[in-house]
Every structure is written in C-alpha cells, then in structure tokens.
C-alpha cells in the first residue's frame, strides 16, 4: 500500500493546518455485493497516528462509517521545516506511513 497518502501541512503562527487524503475502500461491512448477494467483508482504517518531529500528537480512531478514501484535517503546533509523519493501520493489519515537511 505504498503511496496511499497525500499530506499537506501548512504552518501559520506556529500552528500547522494538516490535511491528509488516504486511498482506502473504507468498507464498513454489512453491505451485500449486488451481483453475488454475498456479504462484503469489512475493510477499513482503524488508527491514524500523527507525529510531529517523532512525537505522537494525535491518534484518530476511525470506523467503517468514515467515507471511502478518508480525508482528515487537524491542527497541530508545528513550524515550517518540522517533520510531520502520518501512519495508518486497518482492520486487516495493512499499514502505511508517509512523511512530509511542514511548509
């Protein structure tokens, strides 16, 4: 699942506006495949961890109720040049990590 994320972090007055877009089906389960009638198994991101310069600042817990290709927006204390790292883990144990410099 390489390159599943797009990160944009822009700092103003010491606070960075962080926007993350992740490519993921976010299948909540409970739906049926319209062709086969079989249940579609759940497949969604559970945890997204935001780190600034190696320190965890936010953990977002998601469910299958979050839209497909989730968009997350949060604000953290960070200045231009700081390193922002975002990692996600889904219910199947798949994971991805990406880093971006705060602009």
């Amino acid at each position: 699942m390489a390159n599943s994320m797009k990160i944009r972090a822009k700092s103003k007055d010491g606070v960075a506006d962080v926007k993350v877009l992740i490519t993921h089906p976010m299948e909540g389960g409970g739906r049926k495949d319209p062709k086969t009638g079989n249940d579609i198994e759940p497949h969604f991101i559970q945890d997204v961890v935001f780190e600034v310069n190696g320190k965890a600042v936010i953990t977002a817990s998601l469910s299958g109720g979050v839209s497909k290709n989730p968009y997350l927006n949060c604000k953290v204390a960070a200045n231009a040049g700081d390193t922002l790292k975002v990692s996600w883990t889904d219910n199947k144990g798949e994971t991805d990590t990406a880093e971006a410099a705060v602009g």
Partner: protein
Amino acid sequence: MSINLKRRVLLKGSLAASTLGVAAGAGLLAPQAVLAAWNTDAFKAKTEADAMTAMFGATEAEASGAIDVSAPEIAENGAVVPIKVETSLKAESISIVAPNNPSPMVSSFALGEGAQSFASTRIKMGKTGDVIAVVKADGKLYSARKSVKVTIGGCGG
C-alpha cells in the same frame, strides 16, 4: 574456484538482505506510540447510548455553545458528508457520533499535547439525522449537534 567464490558472495549478500527485510518488517509491526487504542466496543455498539458508555463510561454530555459543528444542512450524497468540529474548550478528544447510523460511533480524535481543538473529516450517513460532536475537556463531556438531511443514504447498497 572463482565461480564458487562468487556464489559465496552472492549467498552472503542475499542473506544480509533478507535479515534486513525481517528487521524492517518487525519495525512496522512494533506498536506505535498511540494516544488511544482502537475502542472495539464503542465502534461496534449499535446504539448511541452503548457507544457513549463504551467510549466514555457515561451517556450524558452537557450541551455546550463553545463547540461549533459544521455540516451541510442537506447532504445530497450520504456517502460523503463533510463534518468539521471546532471548540474553544481545551479538548482531550473529539468524537463524531451519528445516532441514526448502524454503528453510531463514527470516529474519535485523541488530541495530545500540541494538538489544537479541531477535527474535520468526511463521514457516511445512512439517513437523515443529527451529527453529534462529543468533546472531552477537563475530564468532562460536552456536546453539540447539527441536523443533516440526507437525500441518498450512504450506508446500504
């Protein structure tokens, strides 16, 4: 002789590479520095009350005017409903709850030191109903709600 030597080198090289691969794999599997573990009971709960109890140990949250919930009044597509929560309270966590969804607890942001009291994402809504933002601050629960009219539900198929 020279072929044999090359063979040794190749073997050694591939062995080293595989050791590295294992190490990298272990690094990925190591527990991350998380602020909150995924709360299975809260996210699997089928009612708002059960979800609240599992997440916070309480069902009551004081209505607060200090919380601003932004959501569309009418969502044409329930599969993508943008929600933004902002508060002047010093939030330890911000949770988004949609009581009419099959699983009302949609997401929860655990905010550590350095995080601002702000969270925004896009959620699915099965039908028309409220979106509740639950903010934990100073160990107390506060909430604000906004009604969203859903034209096409985003949970069923």
